[in-house]
């Protein structure tokens, strides 16, 4: 059912107020009257009205001044200015000050009906816009972060509590656990959600490229800089900047970054004009930054600047109960993108997936499901469609450390965590293997 539109009539002439009141009441609107601007503002402070129909000439505060004050109270208010003394100047001024429309008294009954119908349409559009925005946000949340395990619920609670603030966040977790999705969820639930979230993968760029990428550059700043280019900090104005693989940035960039975070201003490469930008920083890493600080590899002051809030995303092996939900989500995602009918997964295959350690976490599971849909018979995913027995080549690891960790983890699982046999297979001694297990925080799967 459509919402009942409320109208506030503000006019010093009683006969005008009565006429409009009777007219709108017969149309089924909720109507209130005020004989001057002061009373109207008092009414508006205690209640919300969809449309305000105000006379321009009133003793005391006039309609134009009242319009400014109403717009200060509620920016989206629809104010229609009426007057018996129409001049182009006042009409233009009213519209400049944010009036929805301007009418000269007396007007045709049809004009009045049109005016209110148009205003009602505008209100309906604004309401619809608000509803859709909220729906988009909730859709993003639902589709992005899948999981009902306690570990994921904890992450969701942390996202919710941190989203509304502007505090810097470090998201930690193994490769492939969905750190960027957590960053997106924080951004989508924050007041910055209608501004961009700009992602920068620090590990993929050299120092000079990263500098140019983050701060932008002026034309001629270096060979190949043929145009002025905005940096990522500038693009993230009013929004969020997401710095992935933050642990990989060089000491020089750490200093630069600290300065920008403290002043929220910077200069483009090759430029001299200071640019300010209002952004929120969210970082992600799969390394232990605290240990890096202790070893002097990562600046302590930058660490504390970034680490206002820490969210740790659990590895998949610690949230096995989410695997069926994730599998179902990826099946739908890939079947739809490949324009195929939605397939099922048989119980044995699902059980094997639940037992698999997934060193590459959700990214690995996603790749596995995608592969199964491509090579499968199009009806049901079975064990033969899943490369569980073979070594999975995961090309998404970016660092040698990730690759080494993954490999050691697979060998340990293959030999059921028999350290001597695993060390022999890896051609390293047992002490070295113990050190590597400790370094990467490896644990046997449940």
């Amino acid at each position, binding site marked *: 059912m459509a919402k009942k539109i409320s109208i506030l009539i503000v006019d010093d002439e009683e006969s005008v107020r009565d006429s409009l009141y009777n007219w709108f009441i017969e149309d089924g609107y909720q109507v209130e009257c005020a004989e001057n601007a002061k009373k109207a503002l008092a009414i508006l402070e205690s209640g919300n009205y969809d449309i305000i129909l105000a006379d321009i000439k009133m003793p005391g505060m006039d309609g134009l001044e009242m319009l400014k004050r109403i717009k200060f109270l509620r920016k989206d208010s629809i104010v229609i200015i*009426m007057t018996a003394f129409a001049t182009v100047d006042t009409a233009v001024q009213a519209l400049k000050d944010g009036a929805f429309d301007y009418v000269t008294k007396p007007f045709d*009954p049809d004009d*009045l009906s049109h005016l209110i119908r148009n205003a009602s349409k505008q209100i309906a559009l604004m309401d619809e816009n608000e509803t859709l925005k909220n729906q988009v946000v909730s859709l993003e949340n639902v589709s992005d972060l899948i999981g009902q395990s306690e570990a994921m619920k904890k992450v969701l609670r942390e996202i919710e509590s941190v989203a509304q603030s502007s505090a810097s966040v470090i998201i930690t977790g193994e490769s492939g656990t969905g750190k960027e999705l957590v960053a997106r969820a924080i951004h989508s639930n924050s007041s910055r959600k209608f501004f961009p979230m700009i992602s920068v993968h620090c590990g993929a760029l050299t120092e000079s490229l990263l500098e140019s990428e983050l701060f932008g550059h002026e034309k001629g700043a270096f060979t190949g800089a043929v145009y002025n280019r905005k940096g990522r900090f500038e693009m993230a104005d009013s929004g969020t900047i997401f710095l992935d693989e933050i642990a990989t940035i060089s000491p020089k960039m750490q200093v630069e970054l600290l300065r920008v975070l403290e002043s929220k201003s910077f200069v483009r490469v090759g430029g001299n004009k200071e640019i300010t930008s209002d952004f929120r920083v969210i970082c992600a890493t799969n390394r232990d930054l605290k240990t890096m600080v202790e070893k002097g590899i990562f600046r302590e002051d930058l660490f504390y600047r970034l680490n206002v809030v820490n969210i740790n995303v659990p590895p998949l092996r610690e949230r096995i109960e989410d695997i069926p939900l994730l599998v179902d989500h990826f099946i739908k995602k890939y079947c739809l993108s490949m324009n195929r009918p939605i397939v099922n997964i048989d119980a044995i295959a699902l059980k094997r997936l639940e037992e698999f350690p997934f060193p590459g976490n959700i990214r690995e599971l996603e790749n596995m499901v995608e592969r199964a849909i491509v090579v499968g018979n199009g009806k049901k995913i079975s064990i033969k469609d899943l490369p569980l027995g073979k070594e999975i080549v995961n090309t998404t690891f970016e660092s040698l450390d990730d690759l080494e960790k993954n490999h050691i983890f697979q060998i340990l699982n293959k030999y059921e965590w028999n350290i001597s046999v695993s060390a022999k297979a890896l051609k390293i001694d047992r002490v070295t293997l113990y050190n590597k297990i400790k370094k990467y925080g490896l644990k046997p799967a449940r």
Partner: protein
Amino acid sequence: MNLESITLISFGIFEKGLLETVLNDVENEFQVPVRTQKGHLDLGEFYDSGRKQYDGNRLLKEIEIRFASDTGKTLGLFNVDLFIPILTYIFGQAFLNGRSGIASIYRLSNERYGLKANEQILADRFRKEVIHELGHTMGLIHCQNPICVMRSSTYAEDIDQKEHHLCSKCRADFEHHQNI
């Protein structure tokens, strides 16, 4: 509260037989006794020389004070051009869920718009306008149904688009108001 009667009071001259037709249609629509009577008012007191029209607000108040009763609905019928301060003209108006209303035949005739006179169309428009204003006195607001008599009409030809009956929703609302 059950509606006991409707009184249509004519001020001025109307075509012979017109009021009788309207009376029958109103009686059929609301299923209560309807009576007509002649009223006397010095309309000059309500004339606005600046606008060359008659003040609908003041006329409505006059009908309410001098002719309305608690036992039924009273509608003043006029043959003059009505206005309210904010609008250039009105066909009629009434107190919503009140005791009285007014309606004028003045702007309903084809001749006002340079068309050939048509008594049948005029009578049809007038009965719809009378039933419409009485509907307001019975608590009915404007209806979105394009053929319902409670549909708002701002031009005479708009009135031709609707019927002289309440739609099922307005009928149900009317009965609901009667049973309160």
